[in-house]
């Protein structure tokens, strides 16, 4: 039991304990601040590349968080703010790649491959498996039993 608790503790300790947003970055209006946090959770930190700018301690992440809050206070919409960053950094700054012509392979490729593969597998298996089971005759049934059981062996066949 103790080991389980210890393991759970270690597992939880590895999760980020706090967002990287510091109190002096936060906007005074809680609704706007919530909007900012929401936006930045979808933006990638380009330095670390696997974290959102909400989680990252990198200076660039801090700068972009500041920029996001500034633009929110200026009255820009979420779309405008994200558009501003995407036009400068490209789609990679979005943690969720957009679904468009260039990325459909990313989004649908695995599914398509799965369907293709399953289809092929089914077609292949259907061709191979015999349509009717061969029934064993009485004599063959007995012979089978003999071969498989101790009885048969004992009788020395």
């Amino acid at each position, binding site marked *: 039991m103790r080991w389980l608790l210890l393991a759970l503790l270690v597992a939880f300790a590895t999760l980020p304990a706090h967002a990287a947003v510091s109190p002096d970055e936060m906007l005074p209006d809680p609704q706007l601040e919530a909007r900012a946090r929401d936006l930045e959770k979808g933006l990638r930190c380009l330095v670390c590349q696997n974290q959102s700018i909400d989680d990252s301690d990198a200076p660039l992440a801090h*700068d*972009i968080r500041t920029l996001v809050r500034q633009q929110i206070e200026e009255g820009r919409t979420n779309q405008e703010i994200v558009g501003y960053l*995407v036009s400068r*950094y*490209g789609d990679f700054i979005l943690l969720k790649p957009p679904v468009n012509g260039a990325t459909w392979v990313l989004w649908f490729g695995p599914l398509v491959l799965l369907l293709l593969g399953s289809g092929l597998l089914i077609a292949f298996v259907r061709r191979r498996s015999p349509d009717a089971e061969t029934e064993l005759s009485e004599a*063959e049934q007995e012979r089978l039993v003999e071969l498989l059981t101790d009885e048969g062996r004992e009788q020395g066949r």
Partner: protein
Amino acid sequence: MSSAKAADTATSAPTAPRSRRRLLFLIPAVVFAGAAVFLAIGLTQDPSRLPSPLIDQPAPTFDLPPLPGRDDHGFSSKDLGGKVMIVNFFASWCVPCRLEAPMIQRLAKEQGITVQGIAYKDPPANVRAWLDELGDPFTRIGLDSSGRTAIDWGVYGVPESFIVDKRGRIVYKQVGPFLPQDFDDKILPILAKLRG
């Protein structure tokens, strides 16, 4: 022994013609080969070097203050265009920037290219010290203390450099320091073409 064998072939389902079955076997191999080629090409790419969406776009607008003691008036977007230029984002605290300093010198002195510098988040005194130590190849230097201009250029690390053509459009982005092989393979040909 048993006559099961004969019974089997008599009742089994008709199988597809041999050539068609062979073709089916090929399909997974072909898909695999296709995927392998795709992935192999992918492995040669460096995913951490982002392509710039600013290529073939006009350079962003900016107006940066000068380094105190230098007689340029800082560096702004008005200084771009007219001739081919390289805009180099650097910092004294950046180790790879030191690596590329000789390349920048080559560009400026040997090739006669105008190299404009933007000092990223660097106190002026440190920039001055760096130039004194490693040389000053820059025509103009702008100080980007907030890093906001860097964001406008899509910069996410230093050093990063941009080749800007005579019309003031960004033509090429170098992520990381210039390396000798980049130089001869990519940079010089591009510059030659632009100066054409």
